[in-house]
């Protein structure tokens, strides 16, 4: 398990920042997918003496029709396959993807986190298995199966692993343990897995520790993401990592026990006073906190 930061790697000062925090692995948040941009991202990270482990996620806009199962999806899928091939050529071997169309109704609201930091609050309506009919659910799975059947062979050939990213930011998602198991059955390729978020699974009423142990053993967890949620009357508030220290500690313990060797990345913290848009202060805090928990576990 190695600490990783998600950033736009074209900022040299941010790569230095990562190194100063003792972080060796970078997950790139990029906007351009042409071959030179991908190569530049990788070169920049490696020239700084760090490792580019993957790209944060495929842009959902590139496969909206595929999610909806609408006409035009084959063109989109061809486009996604091309992105994967370019990644492979650039030697970048991991990318996240989502299966939800974020809309205005599902975006988080601004909330007050600790000490007046600005955090995100997700409406409870966005909780697992909300208002979704059987038919919708079935179609969602069919669309996903169609997508993965087309995309995964290309990913395998390109040497790129796809990590499904559960998210609270949109309704009607596959997010709880049962859904994720179904997803693994649907696409049993070793190039397909999960960007694991123990906090989300805990909100879904699951025991993240048991899932981490099982899925790490099966090679399903490609990335581990950590964040802290608190349930309030209004919804789910994202907080600082130490605010759910028990949940985090149990999750890290499970990763450690199961021998997880992938990247461990903190989600953004609530925005701290005077911080940059990316959140340097918040990330510095999170990395320090995680480093200490891992050291203390021995």
């Amino acid at each position, binding site marked *: 398990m190695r600490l990783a930061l998600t950033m736009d790697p074209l900022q040299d000062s941010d790569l230095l920042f990562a*190194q100063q925090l003792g972080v060796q692995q970078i997950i790139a948040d990029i906007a351009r997918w042409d071959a030179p941009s991908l190569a530049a991202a990788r070169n920049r990270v490696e020239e700084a003496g760090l490792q580019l482990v993957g790209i944060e996620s495929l842009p959902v806009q590139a496969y909206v029709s595929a999610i909806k199962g609408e006409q035009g999806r084959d063109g989109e899928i061809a486009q996604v396959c091309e992105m994967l091939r370019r990644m492979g050529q650039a030697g970048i071997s991991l990318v996240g993807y989502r299966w939800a169309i974020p809309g205005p109704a599902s975006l988080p609201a601004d909330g007050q986190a600790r*000490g007046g930091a600005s955090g995100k609050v997700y409406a409870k309506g966005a909780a697992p298995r909300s208002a979704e009919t059987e038919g919708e659910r079935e179609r969602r799975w069919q669309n996903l199966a169609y997508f993965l059947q087309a995309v995964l062979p290309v990913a395998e050939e390109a040497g790129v692993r796809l990590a499904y990213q559960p998210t609270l930011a949109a309704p009607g998602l596959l997010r709880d343990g049962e859904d994720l198991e179904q997803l693994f059955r649907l696409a049993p390729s070793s190039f397909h897995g999960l960007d694991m978020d123990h906090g989300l699974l805990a909100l879904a009423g699951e025991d993240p520790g048991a899932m981490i142990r099982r899925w790490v053993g099966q090679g399903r967890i490609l990335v581990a993401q950590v964040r802290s949620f608190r349930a309030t009357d209004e919804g789910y508030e994202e907080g600082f990592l130490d*605010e759910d220290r028990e949940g985090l500690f149990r999750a890290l313990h499970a990763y450690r026990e199961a021998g997880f060797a992938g990247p461990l990345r903190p989600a953004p913290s609530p925005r701290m006073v*005077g911080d940059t848009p990316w959140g340097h202060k918040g990330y*510095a*805090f999170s*990395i*320090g906190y995680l480093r200490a928990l891992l050291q203390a*576990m*021995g």
Partner: protein
Amino acid sequence: MKIALYVGMTEEEVQFSRQLGLRYVVSSLPPNPKGYLELDDLLRARDFFARAGLSFDVIENLPVLHYHKVMFGLPGREEQMDNVCTTIRNMGIAGIPVLQYQWMLLGGLRTEYSPTGRGGARVSRFDWEVAKRSPLAALDWRRSPDLLIHAPDRPLSSEQVWENITYFLQRAVPVAEEAGVKIAAHPDDAPIPSFMGVARILSSPEGLQRLIDTYPSPCNGLGFCQGTVATMAGVDMVEQIYRFGRQGKIFFAHFRNPQGAVPKFDEVFPDEGDTDMVAAVRAYREVGFDGVIRVDHAPGMVDDWPHGNRTFAFQVGYFKGLVDALEMMDAAAAPARGGN
């Protein structure tokens, strides 16, 4: 253990502390021309922090200009001691329980601040050889002309300096006892036995013990600067936490983890220094230390803010993580107390 940052009286700084989840602050007041810290100023500071939900528990430090004649044993020291006693009484009234002071006649010593740390972070260094070659460059108070006048022409032996601090303790400690204020001595950083002919008496565990024994009192103890103790040659810092912590003499502490020790050390990030910090935090827990521990200086990071928010956020996260981890591990290891 009460984790704190050194915080100035600005809204942004107190907010930063609160967002990091801190409840305590360490702060100071500027030297007062009257020679003592006035009650109104102390109350204003205390209330300012209290409104933000932060408890102002430690003054770091007693302004040197309020007692430098005592340090050097110069005429006028009686009057300065009267004023120091007034400061202590005012702190007692204001309910600020700990006053840290230091006995570095020539101040703190460093010889370099260069981008030699992890990822090119700026690291401060002490190298005794360099300090011997260019002593004036190693003095960090050199901007203070009031003190410079005492420097090179006034050698002071260890016994002379002990006499001076003994006078200080004899006057200050009884007042501290009455006022309910603990006075905490910071060790000499860098911990070398003398510099430019002036003794540095609090540069070894024996020196710290002698300070405690010079005037035994529940109000006479240490500002246990971990980094300074860790850089004392041949000293196991964690052992010193047990030694002084078990005597109840750690009134306040600094969290820092350097690499190396006298004659040469670097102030690196706390997760890469020589001390096993997990063992250090365990030691504080085992001796029952319940005072304030302040996150200390750390390397300068790229594009950081004037108050070092990046480097301090990292340090607070790291320190909190150690404390939280040990609390949770101990709770998990505790025998279950179920049933009746």
